[in-house]
């Protein structure tokens, strides 16, 4: 278990300490970072479903200029580890994940603030012409900051998750029901955020079309994507060259 806890600790660390986006860009999203945790903890199927549930409220998550409305890269690995170790169901995990993500915003703020120190050190090294240390400043210190604020909670989630689960068991049923209820509504946040970014007046009907296709005709998301792509292509061609469609 200690070995698992260490691996989860590293996943949680690298989900914020992006050593290279060629690898870590997708670790921002609980679907992938949580799945990695699920693999490490030997519960790939259950963990994957929990990770996906935790990701749902973050479908419309957008970060720009380092500002984060919530902290999915913390909620993903730590939330999945906690849910697996304590035996939560997916809906509860989604609600708990959102709470963890909201609280952990301060971890991100701390990370972004403290890291400025390493830049100041890099300033000094560059003035001395020590290029190697400039590179070290880019990679090394921020790892330890992330280890402290993200890795350690990940480690604790694995080690003490079962205890947390026992504690959850002592909660009265109505609290767990309320969490499950909130967990069901929370994905509306991700959808709403995305609408807020994407929807221009003339495009809004497409949102309702997607909703209707899924709800009334029970089409899968993949089928709706294909229909959407066909509509998009049609509109694109007609809009560009109304006279020359087809050539």
């Amino acid at each position, binding site marked *: 278990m200690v070995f698992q806890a260490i691996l989860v600790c590293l996943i949680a660390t690298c989900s914020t300490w992006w050593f290279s986006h060629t690898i870590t860009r997708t670790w921002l999203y609980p679907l992938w970072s949580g799945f990695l945790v699920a693999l490490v903890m030997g519960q790939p199927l259950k963990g994957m479903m929990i990770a996906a549930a935790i990701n749902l409220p973050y479908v419309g998550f957008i970060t720009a200029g380092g500002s984060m409305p919530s902290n999915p890269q913390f909620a993903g690995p730590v939330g999945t580890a906690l849910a697996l170790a304590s035996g939560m169901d997916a809906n509860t995990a989604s609600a708990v994940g959102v709470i963890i993500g909201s609280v952990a915003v301060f971890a991100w703020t701390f990370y972004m603030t403290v890291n400025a120190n390493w830049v100041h050190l890099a300033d000094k090294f560059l003035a001395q012409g020590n290029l190697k240390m*400039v590179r070290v400043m880019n990679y090394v210190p921020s790892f330890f900051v992330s280890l402290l604020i993200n890795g350690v909670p990940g480690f604790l989630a694995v080690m003490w998750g079962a205890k947390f689960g026992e504690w959850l068991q002592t909660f009265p049923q109505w609290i767990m029901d309320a969490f499950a209820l909130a967990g069901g509504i929370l994905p509306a946040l991700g959808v709403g955020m995305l609408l807020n970014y994407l929807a221009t007046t003339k495009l809004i009907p497409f949102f309702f079309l997607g909703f209707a296709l899924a709800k009334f005709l029970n089409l899968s998301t993949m089928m709706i994507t294909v229909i959407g792509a066909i509509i998009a292509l049609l509109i694109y061609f007609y809009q560009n060259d109304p006279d020359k469609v087809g050539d």
Partner: protein
Amino acid sequence: MAQLTKKDLVKNWLLGYSSETCYNYERLQGLGNTNAFMPIIRALYPKEKQAEELKKYLIFFNTEPSWMGTVVHGITAAMEEKRANGEDISADDIISLRSALMGPLAGIGDVVSQSIAYPILAGICISLALNGNFAGPILFEIIYKALMLGLGYSMYMLGYNKGRDAIVELLQTGLLNKILEAVSIVGLMVVGAIGASNVSLDLSFLNWEFDNALGTITFNVQTQVFDGLLPGLLPLLAVVLVWRLLAKKVKPTTIILGIFVFAFLLIAVRFLMGQYA
């Protein structure tokens, strides 16, 4: 004459993916960019000038670094090459061009990566994963990275080969906007599908039974009122309400809190109805 090899360019492009390793509020990607431009500066300038040349990168800089913003680095690499070969390009020229481009590319890059590619992919893959299909996370990882690296590399090379004209042209013709608008359609439809299949709000606990001469009559608010009107009406209303609140600049944290309060209120109603007795 100092010239950049393909290897230098690829190194510069790849190291650009480490530009958020020491992400911080003061200079954001500044230190990461300094790190990324080491191979370029080392290839072009004599040892004693390298530190001085690198100083123009250790400043405030922020763009979308993975999908589209790589074009800025490509353009910069070409400028550095010309500057090292004696063309009249000052350090300030490079800095001001980079600062001018970072904003627009952050805008387009974030739209492409975070409000189109990610939600469409995540929408499909989360649905798969929730149904217990391992293709969910695996497809997400593979397709996301293939698109990101493919586009990132193309944009970098476009910037290096064509210089600033390439991107200015792309931004001005409006072609890009038309493409983005078309892709947004797919995005919105997927978002609608996610809303329909994943937001759940069920009031079937509001259930009454009446006994009269004809027998027992049940009245269920969920199945007889809302589902009778339109399936999925309540989740849809929840989504639209959240969206309007966000449009009114209500903070996501406040909305999350609101959702929890609402959930506990519903539970309170169940208490009053004696369901926890």
